[in-house]
Structures are given as C-alpha cells and as structure tokens.
C-alpha cells in the first residue's frame, strides 16, 4: 500500500521533529539528533536542509528567528500531532511485538 507523505516518519525525520520540540537551529539540530539517538542516528547538513525545507512547506515546523544566515525553527501544532501519531504507532508496534518476542 502506498504511503502518504508524512503518514509515517523515517527515523531521521522523527528525531529532527523531536529536536524541534524546542526552538533550535542549524547544526544544533544535528547535534541534538545525535544526542537523542545516542549516536545511532546522524543527519547530514544536506539531508537536514532538505528536510527542514520540506517540513516548512508542509507547515510541520515554523521559522521563529532569522539572524543572518542562521535560522531557528520550532515544531507547529500540526507537526506535533504528526509526531505524536508516530510515537503512538511505534509504541503500538513495540507492544505488539512484546507479546511474541
């Protein structure tokens, strides 16, 4: 079945949105993602840039500040909904597996 855009989030997307639960910018997002995932997930600057652009266009995040070339973002309510849905989906998957594994 074809997946709708943002119906499920990839790992990097999930962690970036997690990082943007608080206002954050640029390389700080990358560092935070690495920290939150305990070094497991790394997001390159190119990937992050494209991802932020996509999130902005889909109103998942919003720009809060712009200081020269540095721009800060934060997740929107819609973005938070998507993130929560993904979190619940992952929890459900873990719960489904727990019974058998």
């Amino acid at each position, binding site marked *: 079945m074809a997946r709708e855009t943002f119906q499920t989030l990839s790992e990097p997307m999930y962690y970036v949105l997690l990082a943007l639960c608080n206002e954050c910018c*640029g390389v700080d997002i990358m560092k935070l993602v690495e920290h939150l995932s305990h070094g497991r997930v*790394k997001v*390159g*600057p*190119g*990937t992050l*840039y*494209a991802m932020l652009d996509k999130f902005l266009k889909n109103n998942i995040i919003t720009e809060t500040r712009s200081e020269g*070339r540095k*721009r800060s973002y934060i997740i929107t309510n819609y973005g938070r909904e998507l993130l929560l849905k993904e979190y619940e989906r992952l929890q459900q998957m873990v719960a489904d597996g727990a019974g058998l594994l």
Partner: protein
Amino acid sequence: MNNYNKEKLVKKIFWHSSYDLKTVETFLENMATDGYMFVSHDHQVFRFKRCEPVKLKFFVDIFHNSRKLDDSLGTMKDEYVTYCEECGWHFISNDGNMLFFYTIDDNATPIQTDNELRLKLINNQTLHTDGIGWIMWLFLILMQLCAFDWHNLANALIDEFSVLCAYACYPLIFVPDMVRYCIFYFRNRGKVKEGADITFYSAGSTFRFHFVRIAVAICLLIGLTFAIADSIYVACVVVAFAVVAIIIVSLICNHKSKKSGFSRMTAIAFNLNANMIIATIAALLVIFLQFFEVFNIIGSRTLFNYNATNHSTTINSVQNDTIPFSLGSLNALPEEADTNDTSVYPCASPFGRYDSFDEYVYDDSGNIIRRFEYDIIISNYDFIIDSYIEDFKSCEPEDFVDLTESEAKLWQANAVYLDAAKGFGKGTRLVVYENKLLVISASYDFEYTDERIKAMSKAVKNYS
C-alpha cells in the same frame, strides 16, 4: 577557497558522467594526495592549484533546488553552504547545481545521509543536464532515419558510407550513457529504499566507458571523411559545422552570464521559464540544422560536386587518363561539336567505388548537342552488386529489356539489361561484370556499335 587567486592553475580533463559523483570525489582526493588542490570545475575540465600533498575527503553534492536562476537562490545556497561549513565541510566552488566540499576530518558526517534523497537529487540533476541532450539526439536520429532510403541500404554502403557511419556512430555516443545511467538508477532505487548505500561506478569502469565513447566519436569523424574524393575538404566542413554549432549553443546556453544568470543571447529580463524555453528551442534548432545540413549535403552528394574534376577539351583532345572512355575516344563526337566537357564524380568507401562521368558536347554557339553519362561501380561484395542490379531491375516491366542474349558476349559481360525509361536518350544500360557494373546513358544519336562496345568493355575491365 571560493575565489581562486591569480597563480597559475593546472587543468586536468577527467571524463565522467553527471552521476559519477563518487568517482569524481575519489579523483579529487587522489589529486590532493599528489599535491593538487581542487579549485573549480567546468564540465570535464578540473582546475587545480599546487599545494602540499594532503589527505582530504571530498564530497560532491547536488543542491536540491533546481531553480538555479532564481535570484533568491543565492541566499538559499549561502544558507545551505553555511550548514555544511558548520559541520566541518569547506565549500570550494560550484558548477551549476553541483557543489564541491572538502574536509580534513575523516569522521565528518557526510553531507547527505539520506541515500534515497541523494539518489533523487542525482536523478533530477542527470535528467536536467543530460536528459535534454538525450531527447535531442533521439530526435535527430529519428529524423535522419526517416529521411534515409533503407531499401537501398546495400547501395548506400558505397555512395553514402559516411552517412551510414554517422547514423551508426552518433547514437553509440549517447545511447550507452543513457543505458548506463538507467542501470545505475534502477539498480540503486530498490537498494536505497532498504537503507543500503548508493553503489556508484568505479573509477576504472568510468574511465573505460568514456574511453570507448571518445574512441567511437573519433571513429565517427573518420567515418565521415573516409574514402570521399577530397576527404580533407569534407573533414574541414564537418569540423567547421561542429565548431559553429558548439559556439552558438554555448552563447545561447551559457549560464555564467552575470546579467540574466543564464543566457548571453537572451539577456533581456525574461523570467526563468521563458529563458529556458528560448534557449532549449534555439539550441535544438541550431544543432538540428547544422547536422541535418551536413549529412544532407553528404548524403545527396552535393558536396561531391566540389570534388568533381572538370576536363574541358576541344574535340581533338586526347582522352584524359582519369576518364576510362569518352565520346571522343569512341569516335562518337558529332561533326558540329566544338568543345566537350567531362565531369568526374568519384565516390569510394571500404565497400567499393562508385564513379560517375558526365560528358557534355557543345556546338560553337555553346548549345549542348550531345550528352553521355556513365557510372562504374566496383565492389568485391556480391550483395552490393546484386543490390544495384535489383534496384535497376525494379522498373516497369514494359520498360525493362534483358539484352544478355544479344549483347553479353559483345560486352564480354555476365549480363546486360536495358531500362528504356531510365536516364535519357535510348534509356540506360546496365552491364554486369564479375565485380563491376557499368551503367550508361547516351543521347539518341549515339550508336552502340560493336567497336564502341568493345572499347568501352575493355576500358571498364581495366578500370580500377
């Protein structure tokens, strides 16, 4: 690093396709190890400046926004570069949407960690840079294929050999690249969805592939000029056309123009889409006209007229060595003849020769009073000789006469045919020898006497 200084730069040509990113990165890393620091890139030409040998890691990225002519892009690209620089990647230069970075940190996070996205960017970039060219070449080859007379393919091996070479060779230049890219893309498309890395072609295979392409391009040039009477002339014409086409296309499509950011020739403030449409159509027209004109000229043998040798003689002149026979040598000049004029049209290829001789006789008023044309076709390939014979025989049944029984012995030939409707005068005769054909047309008052037939036959047999 963005602005290279005025010291002398070393240029190196490194053949690669637009999707050979890893190969380019490896090349730049090797050059840095050898003491050459990358400065800038323009198509296949890389510029370096000398430095201390250093171990660096390079990354060739494709900026995801393809609207490279948008004024706001400058800001976007700057922001993007800032992101990368904050992660330890140093921006060197860009060539269109291709951005070149380096880092001294072996453990730096790659600029693109999403392989699916990277493959998508490569795909967009390749279709953008090469796709138009591929479509254009396909369009050109289809136009040429439609214009070519495929029923006479065997004949064309002699008198249109250059055109056939062009038809064969120039698709070989671009079709393999299309196929190679499709293999690359579809092989990786499934893999990246499963989280695997993109597999790029190795440096060795890239080198071999482009080496073959260049060799084919050289064969194309050689094939275009091979065995035509004045091959240097043809080669010059072809090269001149190619140079003109390249210059015009560069002027139209030069995206380094400061004023519009795209085209020197359309430097008015059109919007992006209009600029691209104008440039694409103009480039297509220019290239199409150039190639079509060149191959049309070669194919129609118009060019051969420049190679013709004219022998203007008086009626008592001795036959020129290059002409097997003429009305003069056959004692067939009319009494009122004042001058005669023979044009020779030679044509040769690895498959044989096709030489045409046209003689016109004039009276003292300059009027044409007799005409005499013949072609001598020589080939060691039976299928070519047979093809010419079949072509000759494909006439109306009422016009065709088989004169083999009555004239073959005289001509000392295998067969003699007449097409009464072909050519002029009494029609055209085809005389078939072992590996030669004589196709002859003469004015009504020319008589095929035994003496003349024997003389012509001897001349043809001795002709090589």
